[in-house]
C-alpha cells in the first residue's frame, strides 16, 4: 500500500513553473469543468463537511469559513468574482465613488426577491449593513469589512449611498464575501435564535431545516432569479435539494464518499487526494482560499526574533520544500508570497527563502548565538535559543502538523530549539493574546490585498477587548504603515498594485514571515456530479449549475 513516490517529484518542477505563471498573471480561483451531456433536473446532493458545525447559519453572526461554505448556497452577495477572478457586480448593478473617495453609491438590481417574498432594494441592503455593524450581532469579519462606513442612506428604492470615514478601495471586495451577504430584512428582524436556525436569502437554495449535529436540509428556491443572465443557465437550480452533513473525521468522510453515501466532501487530505487521482470515479477540485497565504509568522516583538538576523537565520535553517514534497503528495505548491496565489496583486520573492543551514549558522554566530549547550542548542548569555510554537489542532491539518515537526527536527541541526504546543482553539488564542509565542500559523481569509493592512499595519497590534489582534508578527514599521494607508485609499489601480507590491516586498525582506503554501481548500467529488467548479469570491463551491448524472 505504499504510494508511488515519483508522483510528487514529477509534479514539483511543473508546479513551480505553474505557480510562477499564476503569480504573475493572477490566476483563476478554480477551474470550471463543463461536462458534456444534457443536464438532469432532480436529485439530492449530499455534501459532507469536515469543518466544525457552525453554531449559527447566519454568516453575519461571527463569520468563519464553515458558515461561508453552507451560506453560499442560500445567500448571495452584492459583488462576486467571475471565472477569471474579476470582481463583477452581482446583487448590485453598479457602483460609483466620489472624487474624494468618501461617498460610495451602490445601485441595487431590481426584480429580485428573497424567499420570504420581501423585495431586494436599497433599504434591505441598508438593514443588512446595520445588522452587521450592530454590536449585539457579534459579527467579526463583516464588522471589520464595513468598518469605515460612517452613515448610510437609501436615496431611492435602488440606490444606496454610503458615507465613509476614510477612503476605502477594498469596499467592493469586502462586498463579495459571504460574511457580508444580503439577507431578508424581514427575517433579520426576528430573534437571533430564529435567524440562526433558518436565514432567508436570494440564493438558488433555501434553508428548510437544521438538525443539530446531524445535517442542514436545503431545498431548491423555486423563485430564484440569476442576477446576471450570462453567468449560468436560465431558470432554477437543477438539484432538488442539498443535504449538508458534518463528518469531522477525515478517514470517515473519505470512506463515505467512496461508499457513495455522500457526493462531495471538503477538507480533503493530501493522501486521500493522491489516492483519488488514480480513481476515475472521484474527481478533485482545487480552490485555494483568497487573502493571506498559509504562512508562519515570526513574533518580532520579543527575543530572539526581535533581531532580524535571527529571523533570517531561522528561515534558512528549515527545509520547507522537502517536507511539502513528502507530506503533501504534490497537492500543495510552495508559496513565497504573503498573499494567496489567487490574489492578482500577490508579490513573491523566492530567492529569500532557500534552505541554507550554512548561512543560518553564519547569521546566528554574527548575532551572538555562537555558543552551544550540552544538548546541542545555541545559547547566548545563558539563555537557550528556544522558540515556542503553539499549534491549533483545528486549524492545522495533520500533514501540516507533521511539517512543523520536521521543521523542529531540521532546526535542531542548526542549534535552534522549537517547542511545539498542540492546543485546542480557545487555549491557542489564549497563548496568542498573552504574547506567549515566537512562531504561529494563523490563516486569514479575505478577498483582496486589503488583508495586508490587517496583517501588517501597526494598528493591528492593538488588541480588541477580547484580546484578539491580527498582526501576529507584530510589525511596527511607520514606512510600511504609510504605504498601506495610501494603497488602501488610492483610486488609481496601477498605484494600488505598485504600493501593495512594495509593502509585500518590505514584509518579505524583513523576514517577518515564512510563507508555506496557499490556504489549502480541496474538494473531492463523485464523477456522477456534473458541472462542479463554480465558486464564490472566497472559494466556496456553489451548485446552481450542478446536476446529478448516473
Amino acid at each position, binding site marked *: 500500500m505504499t504510494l508511488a513516490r515519483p508522483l510528487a517529484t514529477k509534479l514539483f518542477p511543473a508546479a513551480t513553473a505553474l505557480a510562477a505563471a499564476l503569480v504573475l498573471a493572477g490566476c483563476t480561483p478554480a477551474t470550471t469543468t463543463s461536462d458534456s451531456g444534457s443536464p438532469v433536473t432532480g436529485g439530492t446532493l449530499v455534501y459532507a463537511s469536515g469543518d466544525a458545525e457552525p453554531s449559527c447559519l447566519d454568516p453575519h453572526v461571527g463569520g468563519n469559513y464553515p458558515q461561508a461554505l453552507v451560506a453560499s448556497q442560500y445567500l448571495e452577495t452584492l459583488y462576486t468574482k467571475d471565472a477569471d477572478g474579476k470582481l463583477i457586480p452581482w446583487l448590485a448593478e453598479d457602483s460609483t465613488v466620489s472624487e474624494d473617495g468618501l461617498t460610495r453609491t451602490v445601485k441595487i438590481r431590481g426584480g429580485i426577491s428573497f424567499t420570504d417574498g420581501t423585495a431586494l432594494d436599497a433599504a434591505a441592503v441598508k438593514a443588512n449593513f446595520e445588522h452587521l455593524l450592530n454590536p449585539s450581532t457579534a459579527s467579526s469579519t463583516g464588522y471589520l469589512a464595513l468598518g469605515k462606513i460612517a452613515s448610510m442612506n437609501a436615496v431611492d428604492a435602488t440606490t444606496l449611498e454610503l458615507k465613509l470615514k476614510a477612503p476605502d478601495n477594498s469596499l467592493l471586495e469586502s462586498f463579495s464575501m459571504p460574511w457580508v451577504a444580503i439577507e431578508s430584512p424581514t427575517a433579520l428582524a426576528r430573534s437571533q435564535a430564529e435567524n440562526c436556525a433558518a436565514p432567508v436569502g436570494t440564493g438558488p437554495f433555501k434553508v428548510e431545516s437544521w438538525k443539530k449535529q446531524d445535517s442542514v436540509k436545503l431545498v431548491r428556491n423555486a423563485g430564484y432569479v440569476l442576477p446576471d443572465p450570462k453567468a449560468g443557465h436560465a431558470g432554477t437550480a437543477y438539484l432538488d435539494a442539498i443535504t449538508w452533513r458534518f463528518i469531522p473525521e477525515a478517514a470517515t468522510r473519505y470512506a463515505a464518499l467512496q461508499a457513495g453515501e455522500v457526493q462531495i466532501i471538503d477538507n480533503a487530505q493530501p*493522501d486521500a487526494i493522491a489516492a483519488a487521482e488514480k480513481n476515475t470515479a472521484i474527481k478533485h477540485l482545487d480552490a485555494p482560499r483568497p487573502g493571506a497565504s498559509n504562512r508562519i509568522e515570526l513574533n518580532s516583538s520579543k527575543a530572539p526574533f526581535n533581531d532580524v538576523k535571527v529571523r533570517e537565520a531561522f528561515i534558512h535553517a528549515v527545509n520547507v520544500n522537502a517536507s511539502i514534497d513528502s507530506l503533501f503528495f504534490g497537492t500543495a505548491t510552495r508559496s513565497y508570497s504573503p498573499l494567496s496565489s489567487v490574489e492578482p496583486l500577490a508579490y513573491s520573492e523566492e530567492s529569500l527563502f532557500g534552505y541554507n543551514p550554512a548561512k543560518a549558522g553564519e547569521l546566528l554566530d554574527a548575532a551572538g548565538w555562537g555558543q552551544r549547550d550540552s544538548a546541542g542548542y545555541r545559547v547566548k548569555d545563558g539563555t537557550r535559543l528556544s522558540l515556542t510554537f503553539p499549534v491549533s489542532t483545528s486549524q492545522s491539518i495533520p500533514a501540516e502538523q507533521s511539517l512543523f515537526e520536521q521543521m523542529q527536527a531540521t532546526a535542531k541541526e542548526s542549534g535552534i530549539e522549537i*517547542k511545539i*504546543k498542540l492546543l485546542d482553539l480557545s487555549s491557542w488564542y489564549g497563548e496568542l493574546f498573552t504574547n506567549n509565542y515566537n512562531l504561529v500559523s494563523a490563516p486569514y481569509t479575505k478577498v483582496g490585498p486589503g488583508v495586508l493592512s490587517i496583517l501588517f499595519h501597526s494598528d493591528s497590534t492593538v488588541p480588541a477587548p477580547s484580546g484578539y489582534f491580527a498582526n501576529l508578527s507584530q510589525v511596527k514599521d511607520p514606512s510600511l504603515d504609510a504605504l498601506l494607508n495610501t494603497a488602501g485609499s488610492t483610486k488609481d489601480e496601477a498605484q494600488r498594485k505598485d504600493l501593495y507590491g512594495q509593502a509585500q516586498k518590505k514584509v518579505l525582506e524583513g523576514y517577518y514571515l515564512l510563507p508555506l503554501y496557499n490556504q489549502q481548500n480541496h474538494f473531492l467529488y463523485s464523477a456522477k456530479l456534473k458541472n462542479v467548479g463554480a465558486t464564490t469570491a472566497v472559494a466556496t463551491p456553489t451548485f446552481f449549475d450542478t446536476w446529478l448524472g448516473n
Partner: protein
Amino acid sequence: MSIPGPILPTAGSPLAVQKPHARRRDPSVARWLAARLPLIVSAVVLLFFALAAIAPFLLAPVDPLAINPAQAFSAPGAGHLLGTDESGRDIYSRIIHGARPSLLIGAAATAVGLGLALVLGTIAGFGGRWLDFGVGRVLEVLFALPGLLLALVFIALAGPGVSTTVIAVGLTTAPGYARMIRAQIIALRTSPMVEAATVLGRSRTRILTIHILPNALAPLAVLATLGLGQAILWAASLSFLGLGAPPPAPEWGTMLSSGRTYLSLAWWMTFFPGLAIVLVAAAATVLSRSLKSADGR
C-alpha cells in the same frame, strides 16, 4: 474507561465457601510449563518493555527523532523492521524509545490514582461512620461525573502535557480504587486479628499502621498492575483528542493517533504502536490475575 478492578469477593460473600479438591500433582515439566505459559509470556513481555524503558538505545540504536522525508511511508522490511512514519522515522525505534514515556505516564497515573485512593479509602474505612458517609458521597459524585469530562476540564485548566495527563488520568481512576481499598480496610478492621489487638489495648494508630495497612496493600499490587494497562489506554485516548504529550515525543498513544490519518496508506503506523499497547495492557492483566490467585483471595 475507568476500571474499578477485579471484583474481590469479600469475607461474607456466599461464594467464598469451599476450596476445590487438592489437585493431583503431575510431575511432567511440560504440563507445569503449559499451565504457567500465560504468566511466563506476560513476564517476558513486561521485562522486554521495562528494558526498553530503562535502556532504549540498547534495543534500538537508531535515533527515533531522526527525520528522513525521502523514506517516508516505507513498509516494514529490510532497512526498517516495522516500517517508517510520515517523516521517515523508524517505527521500531520509536516504539522502543516510546516505552519510557508511555509506561511512565501509565505508572505515574496509576500511582496518583492509588495514592489518592489510599487516602480516601483509609479515611472512609477507618475514620468512623460520619467520615465514611462523607467520603462515600464524595466517591459517588466522582463516579457520577463522566471520566472524560473530568479529564477535559482539568486539561483545560492546566494546559495539555505529560504531567497534566498523568494527574487527569489518576483523578479519573482513583474513585474505583478507593472503593476497593475501603472494602478491604473494613474487612480487615472487623477481622479477628484486629479485634484481638483492640482487646489488648493497642492504640488506633498502631492498629492502622501495623496491622491494617500492610495487609490492605497486598491487593493493591493486583490493582496497580491492572491499572497500568488502563492508564496507558486512557492516555492514548487523550492523545487522540490532541491533548496528550507534545510532539515529537514517541509516545505510543500519540503515534497511534497520528498514524490513524494514514491508515489506508501505511497500516503499520497504527498497527505496531497499537500492538505494543495491547501487549503491555494484556500482560499486566495476566500478571495481576496471577498475583491475585497467588494471594489466595
